């Protein structure tokens, strides 16, 4: 309705006004300059030009001169001669007086700010688009770490600004055109389920004019409780104030391919005990561990006979083989009916010896098969036992992303509007996974009178996936099976061709029936579906009371409804009787803001700022139903439930009220003082604590201007400093205990009391931050840097900590803890070559955040962030970085030598967990090089890196255990066995020993020397290990420790490459109606340029689970990352 009304108003008579508009162009070639700053000289009144180089600025009375600046051009001063002032800039200087968007959507001169703000133009995001706008910031902003969870369609990206500073939620606030919008996500579990992404994916980068990242509390204090983790301000595109209609069409297609897969071995197939070492020596050792002495493998048995289980009559081997425990492999039913056919490991017979072995896809020998008998076994005719090296990679397909958009904009002096429609269609690299997003966007601006302006932004999005792949350690994550519990001899083509068929036993056609679904069954049958419909936007009225005072009302709303469902077909592995659930969420947030803005100068002094108020209401509801079992096959509806369905009905409501002010003083445009103050009232806190204050103060000093330093060498210099305090409230309903219901038992309701001890006197969290910076530019602004130092302490955090269950509760909500983030951020720009013909720019951003937990609560020694296998936890511990691994390591002596058990030849595990590293990177950074030829061809290359911090890789851990990874069959270790310290862990000293624990719990190492007869002597000087163990025993021994699969998470990635060709104006001019044509070749995630050597399995070191701290530091069968290559065509009419 509003849109219609809006258009009908466009034709209305305009009122007299004091507005200047015009176009900024390059004096060189006449091309328009977007993003140029147009400022009334001597004031802070400023604006930026739009994509077409147009600007409109309301100038105060008496203003005579405009200052116009743009990156790569010399600043120009022009007189205000009338309502239209067009400016042509000479190429040269890097602009100084950039305008950035600051808190609450206020445009301010960057030089006046006492804190760091980094912004990024929409073009940089739209050129190499990502389906998730968050990931498109990767490597572009100093101090911002982005982790793309995986290569799955619709996967979430986690963004952390200046390090984790909260025990709860560390995601920044996202604000679009002044109104907060939800980046809602549900926790992505490392133990299974689909990654439903984060709701910011609803934003089409094509609609973004710019993104401004407010990093510290100093920049975000005006957001009060919501700004504690930084704020990402998104400004959407607006129409140019020009006559006529402009049309822009862009169309892109990219092809996505899996580009990081683990390195698999191709020497040995599925099975157990099947290698040559087992034949020669290990077979007896293996059974001895079970207390069975089978004696040596009879010498007359060849390896071939060993594999075929051709044992001499009466031998133990024959007996064990009859039980299905022979040495080789033989498929009968895939569920232990044959020899190791239920086993999902790759310790079986060698693949390159010409063996013929019954396999799951071998032809069935009908002579032996009696379908009428329930006891008869099916006999499969032996087929060649060979490796299928590409069986994993061939599962994945080429994904396709189609991205089309059309925008129409137009208007006149009084009204303008931009309307765009876009469509994104993604076909995933995992078969039968997809995402479709339709987005309709409207932005309009209307002068209702000379003093009253109305602005509207409205976006509708439909985001739909028929199937999102399962992740984590779960049977519905295909990588759990094919990524490690798999056989190298399995032919993926057989699984693909027959997935919808059943074997003679009535089981779905598969290579194994003990633990896994056919991966095609998983992706075609057990689907997870999601649809989100969303409307967000705002309506702003601005009334100019005088030329220096205006009042502004902004009403913003973000509404979405999201429905998810999941199917589990009958005969699936984990739910053989089927399973189905469906839920719907409705989320709405309303924000009303009222501002009184002013801007006045008194000679050399100027003051500007505002007083304001905000009312926020957040409503959320969730209704979910679940069928624990199904009756009929292939019907996914609650009418088909077997048993008692469960239902969940949840709603929450929250309100906050706020008052705030911002006061900025400046003197002679080289000294600036900014202050902000905000007071929030939150309904989620106890009455006595529900109001709290957030102040901030900052200054900026342009010493080059103040001291009159004007030289060719030093072009600009600024120092700045600020102090701020922000806080955080909590979720609704944390204050009192209630009863939780369970699914009724025979119709009888069941209730239990909450397990979280309600808090007493809960207070808001507080974050105090100080920040200082130095910004300098040299050689006519061709080179420059911006350095920021900060120290941020977050205390009194609202944490839900684990408490002793013997208290009757398992958790308690309290205020406690202090996390400190100290960091340094560096942004540097180099314009190495700057000529009309060729231009080379390099932009660097680099940051280091030292993230310490200063204290927890009382005597609490650790707070668990995530947990994984072997009881390993990722924890916050006082005096340590936020996120340390506490797991089982190799026992070492003081010199760091690994202690080897002389009886087994295997490393001894530490009796208790030890610290095995931290998740926190040492530094992250990105370098972008941009080359331009005659303004027609540009090439941009972005490389980003992360160094430091570790991961626990389950792909590596179980991949080794299962014998599927390349390094488990390196050299001849499966033929001859291996010696720890020589063939594996070869960079470590490994010595025989044991340990004793004294009465104080301290561990003492005892060195031992084996005598060769099973006895050992205690010795004082250590003896190096020389025991040979089988590769199978060694790698299955990974189960005993976490340490082997601790991987350094370092990486360098070739993140983006974009080669763009723009048709020269001389050609487009001849075409008449066409104003511009750009053609781009783009690539994203092109190469993993560097990964640490500890990443032997070759996983993607960039991995995660959703946007929360859950699963932080843990890789658990990540869906492989994808490389995207494609092209994009943009035509402007």
């Amino acid at each position, binding site marked *: 309705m509003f849109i219609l009304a809006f258009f009908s108003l466009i034709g209305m008579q305009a009122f007299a006004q004091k507005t200047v508009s015009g176009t900024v162009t390059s004096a060189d070639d006449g091309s328009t300059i977007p993003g140029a700053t147009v400022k009334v000289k001597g004031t802070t009144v400023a604006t930026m030009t739009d994509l077409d180089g147009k600007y409109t600025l309301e100038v105060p009375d008496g203003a005579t001169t405009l200052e116009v600046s743009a990156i790569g051009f010399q600043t120009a001063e022009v007189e205000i001669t009338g309502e239209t002032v067009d400016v042509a800039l000479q190429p040269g200087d890097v602009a100084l007086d950039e305008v950035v968007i600051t808190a609450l959507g206020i445009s301010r001169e960057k030089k006046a700010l006492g804190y760091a703000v980094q912004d990024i133009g929409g073009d940089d995001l739209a050129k190499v688009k990502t389906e998730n706008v968050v990931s498109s910031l990767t490597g572009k902003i100093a101090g911002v770490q982005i982790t793309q969870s995986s290569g799955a369609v619709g996967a979430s990206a986690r963004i952390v600004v200046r390090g984790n500073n909260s025990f709860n939620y560390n995601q920044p606030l996202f604000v679009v055109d002044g109104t907060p919008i939800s980046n809602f996500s549900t926790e992505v579990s490392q133990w299974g389920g689909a990654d439903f992404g984060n709701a910011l994916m609803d934003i089409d980068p094509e609609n973004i004019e710019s993104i401004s990242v407010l990093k510290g509390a100093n920049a975000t204090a005006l957001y009060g409780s919501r700004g504690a983790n930084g704020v990402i301000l998104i400004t959407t595109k607006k129409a140019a104030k020009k006559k006529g209609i402009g049309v822009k069409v862009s169309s892109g297609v990219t092809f996505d391919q899996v580009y990081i897969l683990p390195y698999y071995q191709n020497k040995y197939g599925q099975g157990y005990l099947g290698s040559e070492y087992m034949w020669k020596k290990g077979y007896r050792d293996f059974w001895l561990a079970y207390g069975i002495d089978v004696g040596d493998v009879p010498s007359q048995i060849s390896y071939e006979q060993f594999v075929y289980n051709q044992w001499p009559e009466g031998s133990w081997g024959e007996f064990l083989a009859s039980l299905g425990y022979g040495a080789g492999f033989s498929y009968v039913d895939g569920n232990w009916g044959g020899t190791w056919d239920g086993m999902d490991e790759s310790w079986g017979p060698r693949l390159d010896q010409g063996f013929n072995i019954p396999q799951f896809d071998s032809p069935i020998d009908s002579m032996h098969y009696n379908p009428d008998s329930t006891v008869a076994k099916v006999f499969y005719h032996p087929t060649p036992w060979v490796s299928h090296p590409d069986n994993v990679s061939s599962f994945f397909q080429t994904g396709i992303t189609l991205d089309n958009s059309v925008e129409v904009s137009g208007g006149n002096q009084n009204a303008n509007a931009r309307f765009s429609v876009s469509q994104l269609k993604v076909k995933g690299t995992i078969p039968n996974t997809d995402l479709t997003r339709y987005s309709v966007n409207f932005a309009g601006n209307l002068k209702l009178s000379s003093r009253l302006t109305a602005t509207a932004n409205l976006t509708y999005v439909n985001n739909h996936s028929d199937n999102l792949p399962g992740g984590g350690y779960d049977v519905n994550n295909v990588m759990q099976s094919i990524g490690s519990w798999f056989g190298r001899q399995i032919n993926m083509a057989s699984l693909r061709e027959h997935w919808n068929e059943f074997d003679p036993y009535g089981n779905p056609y598969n290579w194994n029936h003990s633990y896994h679904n056919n991966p095609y069954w998983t992706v075609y049958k057990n689907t997870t579906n999601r649809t989100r419909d969303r409307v967000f936007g705002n309506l702003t009225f601005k009334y100019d009371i005088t030329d220096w005072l205006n009042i502004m009302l902004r009403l913003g709303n973000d509404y979405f409804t999201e429905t998810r469902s999941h199917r589990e077909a009958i005969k699936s592995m984990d739910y053989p009787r089927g399973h189905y659930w469906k839920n719907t969420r409705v989320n709405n947030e309303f924000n009303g803001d009222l501002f009184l803005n002013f801007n006045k100068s008194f000679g050399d002094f100027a003051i500007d700022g505002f007083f304001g108020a905000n009312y926020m209401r957040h409503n959320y509801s969730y209704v979910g139903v679940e069928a624990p079992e199904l009756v009929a096959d292939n019907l996914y509806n609650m009418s088909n439930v077997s048993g008692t369905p469960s239902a969940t009905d949840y709603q929450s409501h929250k309100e906050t009220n706020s008052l705030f002010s911002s006061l900025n003083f400046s003197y002679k445009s080289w000294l600036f003082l900014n202050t902000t103050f905000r007071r929030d*009232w939150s309904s989620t806190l106890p009455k006595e604590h529900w109001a709290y204050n957030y102040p901030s103060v900052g200054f900026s000093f342009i010493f080059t201007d103040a001291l009159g330093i004007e030289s060719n060498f030093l072009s600009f210099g600024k120092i700045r400093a600020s102090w701020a305090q922000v806080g955080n409230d909590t979720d609704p309903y944390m204050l009192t205990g209630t009863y939780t219901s369970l699914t009724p038992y025979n119709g*009888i309701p069941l209730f239990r009391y909450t397990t979280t001890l*309600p808090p007493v006197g809960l207070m808001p969290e507080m974050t105090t931050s100080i920040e200082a910076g130095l910004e300098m530019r040299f050689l006519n602004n061709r080179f420059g840097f911006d350095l920021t130092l900060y120290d941020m302490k977050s205390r009194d955090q609202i944490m839900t900590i684990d408490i002793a269950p013997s208290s009757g509760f398992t958790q308690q909500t309290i205020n406690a803890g202090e996390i400190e983030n100290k960091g340094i951020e560096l942004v540097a720009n180099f314009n190495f070559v700057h000529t009309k013909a060729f231009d080379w720019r390099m932009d660097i951003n680099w940051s280091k955040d030292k993230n310490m937990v200063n204290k927890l609560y009382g005597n609490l020694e650790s707070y668990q962030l995530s947990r994984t296998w072997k009881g390993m936890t990722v924890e916050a511990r006082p005096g340590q970085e936020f996120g340390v691994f506490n797991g089982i390591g190799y026992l070492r002596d003081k010199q760091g030598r690994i202690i080897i058990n002389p009886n087994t030849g295997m490393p001894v595990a530490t009796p208790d967990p030890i610290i095995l590293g931290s998740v926190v990177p040492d530094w992250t950074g990105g370098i972008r090089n941009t080359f331009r030829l005659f303004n027609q061809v540009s090439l941009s290359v972005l490389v980003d890196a992360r160094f430091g911090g570790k991961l626990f890789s389950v792909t590596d851990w179980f991949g080794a255990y299962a014998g599927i990874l390349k390094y488990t069959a390196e050299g001849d270790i499966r033929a001859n066995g291996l010696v720890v310290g020589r063939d594996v862990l070869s960079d470590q000293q490994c010595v025989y020993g044991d340990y004793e624990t004294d009465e104080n719990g301290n561990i003492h190492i005892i060195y031992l020397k084996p005598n060769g007869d099973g006895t050992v002597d205690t010795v004082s000087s250590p003896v190096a290990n020389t025991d040979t163990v089988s590769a199978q025993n060694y790698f299955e021994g990974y189960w005993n420790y976490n340490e082997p699969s601790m991987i350094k998470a370092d990486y360098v990635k070739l993140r983006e490459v974009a080669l763009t060709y723009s048709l020269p104006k001389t050609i487009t001019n001849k075409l008449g109606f066409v104003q511009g044509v750009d053609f781009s070749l783009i690539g994203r995630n092109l190469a993993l340029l560097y990964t640490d050597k500890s990443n032997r399995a070759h996983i993607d070191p960039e991995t995660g689970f959703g946007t929360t701290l859950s699963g932080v530091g843990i890789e658990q069968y990540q869906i492989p990352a994808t490389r995207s290559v494609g092209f994009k065509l943009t035509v402007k009419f």
Partner: protein
Amino acid sequence: MRKVKFLTLILLAGIFTFSSCTKHWEELNTNPNNPSDVPATNILGYVIQGIGRSFFNDWQGMNNFLSYAGQVTKIQYTDEAHYVYRESTVNAAWRDYYRYLYNLQTIIKKANDGDNDRNEQHLKAAAMVLSAMLWQMATDQWEVIPFREALKGDDPNHPNTNPKYDTQDTIYYAINDMLKTASNLLANPAGGPLGEGDILFNGDLSKWEKFANSLRLRVAIRMSYVDENKAREIFNEVIGGNLPIMQSNDDNAFIWWPGSNPWYEPWYYNRHVRNRDDHGMAKTIIDTLLSFNDPRIGVYAKPYAYDSLGNPIYVGQVEGAGTNTNVSRIGARFRDDPAGFTPLMRYAEVEFILAEAAQRGLITGDAKAYYEAGVRASMKENGIADTLIDAYLANPKVAWDSAYAFHMSQGPAGPTYDDHLAKIYIQKWIALFKQGQEVWAEQRRTDFPPLPEAPLSPYGTHNRQPFRYPYPVDEKNLNGANYHAAVDGLGIKDDFWGRQMWWDVRKGVH
């Protein structure tokens, strides 16, 4: 004028927007999803099903206790059976005991609440009976645990989230008192109904009373070797006082499951809904049943195969050995019935307790009669025909008066084992099938049958199955000071051995 109108409009809109004050906030922040109070009976129902699902399931009962006790063991993923435990399972056991005990405490508090005009004395009594049973199960697992200071996280007067530990004797005496009080309350007909949440006895107060007193006998017999006087005192009060105890299989404290998802019997759920086939019959019980020619074997176990004459072949898995799926699986009565049962206490157990008490002179009575009644009760429970029972009771390895001698390698101090006690113990051990904690506790108390350490144990050499359960890492982390103060000096060795239970007076075991 026009300007003024707009300005007024905007200001009005603003005032309207911001006039929303904080008056209604306490209401706004009141949880609309969950009740702040519920009827006690629905809490009782929660606890009863929880006991079945938490302690008589695959993770606790099948993986651990029954394997330590030689009845059921893992045949795939055999880690737990040789004591490579999962922290999460140990944490869950500890957490669940205290969670259920807390909820039972809320039932008791509600009944004690002076403002409460409902009569909930019988609900309180039922909560006390279950509390006592759970406390005994918990202390039999870890011995020294928080008791007197426990469950006080939200105590209005003395909130305590770090409770101190108590010794096992303290807990045992308190359990007896709890059951005594509960029994008295249940004997009084005025005490209100138990309501729909009594999914154990369907509101039958007399069965609760019998259960309470029978549990007292369980307490008494367990402590009888270490504190004979107290045991005598309890027997005297219950048997001497003619208090009602379980008298037939009708009195069995069995949770009968509804039999549809999600309310399946937990063993059925594990096997048929989760599709797991990780458990088989343990070698010890299979060999015992075979050697006794015990007709229950066909109920407890499934044949692994049939011989050429069509006779069933039963094979048990060595407890705590490696993967071996070629063994007998658990019998259908216990494994394959969606609407099956979880046994909390059996009538047969009561008869065996009395047989032992009589045999050891703790009560006066005919030990043989009690013994045979126990065997008969167990057989009946398993649907064995009378003729087979009579034949079984005549079997020299079973018959009370036969000269068959069991060879006991070790025995408790105090009264020496005689063959009669051995027969009681072995028959009780057989009868307690599926009652994980109880059968493990009784095996540790009586050392019968003697069970060696699992072959694949990583803990070095021991001559018995574990004496205790590992303390959960959660408790070490979250209640560390009290944990260390209480537990450090106890001489616990490698999680499972070292310190024996207070009531475990076996000598020479390690």
